């Protein structure tokens, strides 16, 4: 099976292909493949080359700085880190229950983020593959190509993202890296004018989101790839509310196996460390989380939109719940395992977020002014939320002087680490194995990685002027041939003296 592709028996005798940087994802990563002379794939890996050391350098900083500081982990979903850290800091000041207004403002900001992040991913990053084909011409296969050929769709994407960003700006003062969460609550009430401005366009956003779900469903139904591309079984993890509804802001941890059987349910997320550990592998700076009692071989899981549509019992908004039911019916009521179904699930969530924004804007609490509560100080806090890309864990310990002494962060994309590697291997095995490699085939690998909407945000990775190259290495480890993908996407053989 595909997990055999994790390690090659004789790596030095094989050809190495590197896809780097993976484009149209947020952040940087690279994929390497090791092939033999018949182009059989022996090893396929997604490497995360990022290392920033947040866990270390926030030590010694006062805890109230943390929500604003750690959101700099990510410019795509800074609100996620701001909120997860905000919830952890609430625990430090003993704010067990926020005021209704503060909690609703946080949820509003979070839904704004879901809307903008999911719109960005579908319209700006992923749609070119789905609309034009995985192996279409690379110069057309981007958002500018979409603007040229599907201008209405592209403009909707831009406007949906803009709306989500404006929701965030209204709550946090800035679209990216604002400040909203303070220990025990929020720093700003929403004015009636701000609320009314946001209300004006929400109906339109809901309608566009509905149409986007439909477009995506149609594209996937028409796709020859969708039922077979990167399909593999896995466990799934997310937060759910007490009644089993999907909840992005709060809830208990639920893990289901590949058949939908419960591994654990309604687990208090502050005890996450008794359920999830992380394995270090030498070839990636991103750790590999797994469910402890299943072990590192079998305990890995998927998070994010696909996982959430599989784990939750229902969505508490009307249109999105209807779409979720269609989604589950497509898998005959069972668990949906197709990688490309991530896109469908993501747009259902976008619709759910838009409906949720409308409901919150209609709620009188949203313009309340009672924003902060305080309680008894604690020295440890855990905050967990469902970020656009999946479950996000923040965990801090502080000393009596209010400075951070320990921190542990498991970001959403890290939770998908093993699954993304699995998708790369599955696609490599079924599409690339034994084939003469082309740019289009290599893009299949990127399509699989992109489906997870990974946020690899950080250190880039491009080897000088040759970002994509295939090298033929002989048994002594010397490069005897090399294929280079140029800036125009064309592959040319390049001889190199041994």
């Amino acid at each position, binding site marked *: 099976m595909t997990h055999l592709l994790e390690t090659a028996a004789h790596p030095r005798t094989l050809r190495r292909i590197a896809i780097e940087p993976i484009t149209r994802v947020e952040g940087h990563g690279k994929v390497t493949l090791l092939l033999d002379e018949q182009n059989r794939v022996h090893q396929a890996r997604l490497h995360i080359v990022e290392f920033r050391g947040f866990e270390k350098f926030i030590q010694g900083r*006062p805890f*109230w700085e943390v929500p604003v500081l750690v959101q700099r982990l990510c410019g795509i979903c800074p609100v996620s880190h701001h909120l997860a850290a905000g919830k952890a800091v609430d625990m430090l000041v003993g704010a067990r229950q926020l005021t209704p207004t503060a909690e609703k403002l946080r949820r509003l900001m979070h839904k704004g983020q879901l809307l903008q992040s999911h719109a960005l991913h579908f319209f700006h990053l992923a749609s070119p593959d789905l609309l034009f084909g995985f192996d279409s011409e690379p110069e057309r296969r981007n958002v500018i190509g979409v603007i040229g050929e599907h201008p209405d769709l592209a403009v909707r994407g831009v406007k949906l993202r803009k709306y989500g960003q404006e929701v965030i700006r209204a709550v946090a003062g800035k679209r990216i890296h604002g400040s909203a969460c303070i220990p025990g609550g929020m*720093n700003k009430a929403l004015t009636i004018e701000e609320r009314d401005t946001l209300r004006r366009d929400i109906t339109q956003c809901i309608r566009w989101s509905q149409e986007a779900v439909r477009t995506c469903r149609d594209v996937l139904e028409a796709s020859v790839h969708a039922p077979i591309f990167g399909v593999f079984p896995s466990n799934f993890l997310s937060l759910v509310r007490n009644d089993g509804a999907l909840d992005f802001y709060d809830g208990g941890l639920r893990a289901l196996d590949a058949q939908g059987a419960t591994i654990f349910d309604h687990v208090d997320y502050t005890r996450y460390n008794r359920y999830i550990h992380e394995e270090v592998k030498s070839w990636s700076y991103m750790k590999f989380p797994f469910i402890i009692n299943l072990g590192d071989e079998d305990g890995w899981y998927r998070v994010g939109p696909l996982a959430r549509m599989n784990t939750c019992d229902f969505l508490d908004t009307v249109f999105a719940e209807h779409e979720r039911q269609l989604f589950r019916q497509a898998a005959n009521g069972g668990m949906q395992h197709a990688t490309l179904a991530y896109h469908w699930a993501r747009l259902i969530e976008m619709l759910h977020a838009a409906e949720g924004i409308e409901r919150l804007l209609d709620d009188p609490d949203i313009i309340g002014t009672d924003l902060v509560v305080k309680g008894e100080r604690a020295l440890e806090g855990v905050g967990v939320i469902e970020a656009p890309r999946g479950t996000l864990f923040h965990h801090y310990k502080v000393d009596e002087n*209010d400075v951070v002494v320990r921190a542990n962060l498991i970001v959403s994309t890290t939770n998908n680490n093993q699954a993304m590697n699995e998708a790369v291997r599955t696609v490599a095995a079924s599409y690339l194995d034994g084939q003469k490699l082309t740019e289009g085939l290599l893009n299949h690998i990127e399509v699989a990685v992109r489906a997870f909407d990974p946020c690899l945000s950080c250190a880039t990775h491009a080897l000088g002027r040759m970002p994509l190259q295939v090298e033929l290495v002989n048994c002594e480890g010397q490069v005897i041939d090399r294929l280079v993908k140029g800036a125009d996407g064309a592959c040319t053989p390049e001889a190199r003296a041994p």
Partner: protein
Amino acid sequence: MSPDSKKTFRLDGREIPFREGQTVFDAAMAAGVYIPHLCHNPDFEPHSSCRLCTVIVNGRPFASCTQPAVAGQDVRSDTPELNEMRRDLTDMLLVEGNHYCPACEKSGSCRLQATAYALGLQDSHFPQLFPHRDVDASHPDIILDRDRCILCGLCVRISRSVDKKNVFTMTGRGIATTIVVDSPSGLLADSKVSRDDEAVQHCPVGALMMKGEAFKVPIGQRPYDRAPINEDSVARFRAREAALHG
């Protein structure tokens, strides 16, 4: 009006009235002309250490915060050369400390940041030094973050002359200068400082802060979101002048 008020000097071609004993800086600000400054706070004795308020008086440079106004002087302040020097000084202060504006609770109310804005500092010329400096969070109400200290000496002066406690002083030389606390352990918790001290209210940057106040003022409503420091300083100065001298 006293007869004194008829005395004037010329600042960038404009006649500035002054009272006897007034400094060039005070007279200029009272007349509505902003001179960039960091270590000076008109409520306390001037120190002339940051040199941002340097002006050219009759062809020679002086710190305007300590330079007495003299009738008939020719003073230049808003010149390309002086503004370039002010930008360089500000840039140097930024690279000599650890000023992480993005995550700093003082952002938006920080005089160093606001002064850099007023000077139009949009580039960076010097290597970042990334010095190792200690945070003192030992006190229950007050935190001293030396990363952000610009050695303006305001806390030293105010603790000595207003609070009469002498809690702070400077130690070391040149680039190694740091602020230290007078207590057996060297920590704020063991010093005489208290939350009501004037010394902890006037730090122009985020070095000396009250705990528990962070990020309470939302973006868009912070002092220098509302008005740039040049307008804000002049307005405050004039209000102070009006209150003191009518």
